[in-house]
């Protein structure tokens, strides 16, 4: 089980557009990726509703977990994605 903690860099938070990009990237890994706010129940990172329901705001931390081959690499790329201001792109 690989785990990463990352701070949301998108200036308006992990909402519709950044969330959609993130979900697409998470789905492309082909792994079971979950995302959670620290201390809360994780949600499926490949579900747009789940990710939006998380309501992660700018500057808040989220915890990503994944299992399976290449989980570390997959999470690293997702961390890199969340570390960018997707909303400004």
């Amino acid at each position: 089980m690989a785990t990463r903690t990352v701070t949301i860099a998108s200036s308006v938070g992990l909402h519709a557009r950044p969330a959609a990009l993130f979900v697409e990237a998470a789905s492309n890994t082909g792994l079971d990726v979950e995302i959670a706010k620290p201390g809360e129940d994780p949600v499926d990172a490949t579900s747009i509703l789940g990710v939006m329901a998380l309501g992660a705001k700018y500057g808040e931390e989220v915890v990503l977990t994944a299992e399976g081959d290449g989980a570390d690499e997959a999470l690293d790329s997702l961390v890199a994605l969340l570390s960018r201001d997707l909303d400004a792109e």
Partner: protein
Amino acid sequence: MSLITEEQVVLDLTGADRHEATRLLGERLVASGRCTDLDTFIADVRKREETMATGLPGGIGIPHARSTAITEPSLVFGRSANGIDWGAKDGPATLIFLIAAPEGGGDAHMQMLPKLARALMKKDFKAALAAATTEAEVVRIVSAEVELDQPVAAPAEGRMAHAAEVGAGLATGTAAAETAPLADAPRSLNLVGVTSCPTGIAHTYMAAEGLENAAKAAGHTMKVETQGSAGSKPLTAAEIAAADAVIFAHDLPVKDAGRFAGKPTVDVGVKKGISEAPALVAQAEALAAEWRNDPSKAAAAAAAAGGASGGSLVSKVEEGAGLGTRIRQWLMTGVSYMIPFVAAGGILIALSFMLSQVALGEEGPIEIVKYNLTSTDQYNIAQNFSVTSLTSWAALLFVIGAASFGFLVPILSGFIAFAIADRPGLVPGIVGGSVAATMGAGFLGGLVTGILGGLVARWVSNWKVAKGVRGIMPVVVIPLLSSFISIGLFITVLGRPIKALTDALNSWLTGMSGASAIILGIILGAMMGFDLGGPVNKVAYAFATTGLAAAGAATDAPQLKIMAAVMAAGMVAPLAMALATSVRPKLFSEPERENGKAAWLLGASFISEGAIPFAAVDPVRVISSSVVGSAVTGALVMLFGSTLRAPHGGIWVLPLIGNFLLFLLALVAGVLVMATIVVALKSRDTHLAEVDATATV
């Protein structure tokens, strides 16, 4: 003020495409007086819609925008019997929510989306909307799920600083007012915490101090249980019961985590406890507030943790890791239990040598190693100890240190087996390790007896046995059979080749001089600098500390040089970053400069992790320069032949380092090299970085 009114519901939404439908929904906002300019608002929605369609799987569309034409955060609901294509892959949208927020109301916007999404994940929410027959019904269904002033969610929003800015004049104003007594009058909380780190030497205690200070600064009281190698003074049950929230800053599993069941818990790695203690305390505050308002959370957490209780010994093995990772975790568990023995024995022996040189001159260390506890001549320190003789004191320290070193291989082997098979692994592991040491198979032998003993013990303990035998399995059968099988195999088959390998390794290390020693120094140094406390760094560190075990009490073993090289190299990165932030502050952000100050102390204490905050922000430049600088230091230490027999300590064990002036020289050289490179790379790339940022967009 509500987000949605009956005017803002369209039960039979039509429209050729989503833009037309959006316009129809937008008109309702004009009708309810919340939109001052329909064209501006529609243009804003359309802009958002063009960057990415807002259709979601399951027949949902959520067009949304912040707009200057909007006066308050609003929702408009539209239902389409035939569906309107909203860009989702799985088909047209039948339930459409138009979300409108005033310009600058980014936070209100962000409060609506998650709640709406959460509601949409519930089947009955969608079913109720699909079945609703009147506008009032829709308003009731939606309002129940998506309101800005829900009491449970309000404190969470209230703690965000910018929520307050949005508050005035908006719907959140209600929420802010309601929660003001909670948010504005922070109670003094009782916090408890647990800290731990793999070596249990430095981070555990630094994190504890960081958390306690941060809690004090925030006006709370906090007590931290340090689960380090110094042993821990456990929190009392009363202290835990009185706690409002718990902070775990740990790299090893929390011992007896079941004690904290049902408490709001902030759970992070130990580094956060050092670098971000105030943020953790703030998180704990927020959680405590949330839990006060929602008692069901405590019950749920208690139920989830039910039955979870830890033993008093911990291994570093995670469930479900790959084989390679698991082998590494087995070995690291063994190493982490061995390190305190290395530290105690190594420092005692080093002190003994220092004293013996004072008492007996140059040849002191050679004379002192003759002392023991069993001989019948004057070297039996138990019979010939004299309080006034410096030599006696030196001999006493030596004998105790040597006894501690005698446990290195058995403990290593025993806890590798423990990591594999849990408690049943201890007997075959420890006894096997002792056999390996006696046979002269060294720590390589210990690795083999540990893994073998662990695997056999796990195998035997998984046997399905008759009920009558089950009771005596853990006390008699498993230790007996697993020891006999694994150690018997080791003595008759595996032991001799491994002893030959150990001898070869030792003679290679002993014979290593000049170029090959320097190359080893470069490799180990580069490994130490590569991931700053990560797996590669730990492999080099484990190589050095297990080497100490092989070196035993020898005065000038090559393994002692390796330990010195590894420690010096591990000190380079944080010190160099500290230096770089003080000579070129402009290249670093404010938090980085603050970090730089702490990095002096971390580096001086041989805590490579001190450079992680810098590497996290700018991995390529920091790590590439760290690898070079650390390799330089590693090579120079091997060249100078400084020695060290303590496994940790940084400059605090300087008096124990052989040739410590040259050790310092090598360290300074590496720090200067790395600081120069990192400053050069950062200066060259400062303007490039900006170009980069826009180019990757």
